[in-house]
């Protein structure tokens, strides 16, 4: 292994590790957000940051100088699936959009959820 290859590998580690850490941060944060939303019954809980965690993870996997590229690429789906703001979010959006389009009265009983009339 030449000095140049070694330096490039170090550089790849330097870029890949933060990307993978960012991905982990978003995976954790979006999971936390989901539980917080469940706690408040999906009444304006915190928002997920979409796609960022998944994409950062994919880039990290592509760049990291560990294993052969072919062996690494089969793990590309992992951050995209683990990050709730990536594939799970967009899949649920598509399902909801189609469901809303088919069932026009889907939101009929949404409001009033709760009445608290005051003087």
């Amino acid at each position, binding site marked *: 292994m030449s000095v140049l290859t070694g330096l490039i590998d170090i550089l790849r580690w330097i870029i890949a590790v933060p990307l993978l850490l960012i991905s982990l941060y978003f995976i954790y*944060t979006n999971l936390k957000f989901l539980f917080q*939303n469940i706690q408040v*019954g*999906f*009444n*304006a*809980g*915190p*928002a*997920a*940051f*979409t796609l960022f965690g998944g994409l950062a993870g994919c880039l990290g996997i592509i760049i990291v100088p560990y294993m052969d590229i072919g062996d690494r690429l089969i793990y590309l789906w992992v951050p995209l699936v683990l990050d709730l703001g990536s594939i799970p*979010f967009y899949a*649920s*959006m598509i399902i*909801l*959009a189609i469901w*809303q*389009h088919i069932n*026009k*009265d*889907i*939101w*009929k009983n*949404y*409001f*009033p*959820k*709760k*009445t*608290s*009339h*005051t*003087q």
Partner: protein
Amino acid sequence: MGLFNGEITKEGYIPSKIHQFLWPKNFSGSIVNGLGEKEHRRPTQPYHTHHPYYPFGLAEQWFIHKAMASSRISKWYFIHWIKENVTRLRKVSKQKQENSPEHWTKIIKEKALADEDIHVVGITRMNPEWVYEDREIPRGEWVIMLGRRMDYDEFSKNLKGDFISQCVEVIKSYVKGQETGYKLANWIRKQGYYASAKGGLSDDHLFTVIPAAIEAGLGQLGKHGSMISDELGASFRLTPILTDMPLTPDEARDVGVDDFCMTCKLCARECPAKAITHEKHLVRGEMKWYTDFDKCVPVFNEMYACGICIAACPWSRPGVAKNLSLKMLRKRDKQAA
């Protein structure tokens, strides 16, 4: 009207085909807002819940994704998101500093206004009636309302079709307001009192800030449904701080907005959605200016938060609000005499 972009017509706005697909059928935001309701009730949040599983959630996601496609908007939104999720307020000091409400009020206002990003500040007692009806009443007896003037030159670029600059200016204002809010909340916590600060883009909205800002003496509700201040016009953003620190309240003030809006037709004329009417409406037991939610929001979604009504409002132009307010109040005094 195209797949991705809507069309402005003389009759109003026709949303893009995607927006039409995502918009809920057989449902109206005006029902959620309580348009036409005679009984008073706490408000319900119709929009900006930031999670997609509610009637307008899909349309809101369209707005967010369209806006985030602009690098300038996504940069500022990301800054806001990081600040909100990384910033931790300090623990409330166990040693409570005792002082009179007048003293604390004076210091709070001085501290807020010492920040170059805050231009007006008002204080009012928290009213549970402002809290969204499905939320718990938040902790904090007092609301400190901070107002930040937006850069009118940047904001009003929307009148020339540059909606992205306008949107960036709005987010920037929320970020700056939030920064000061955190600083002030931390200072209050250091004195031994509970305090929390949430900017306008925060995810967990708990209450409607405009009624609180009106009670805190910052201004009045304008015809376009946004607040008008006699200092900043309509071109400003609010940041509320909730606290237990004993304070003295400001009073709601009549700054002549109602008299002006009764005759001015500018915002209604300029509104691409034709969502602004010239009459007040009954909303949850109160007659007030009301913007048609179902007409306004599609334009808001597809034109980077639009903001045309605020930019077109004569009060928004720099240096105009104070004089306009005095003029309206003098005119009324003359008529009364």
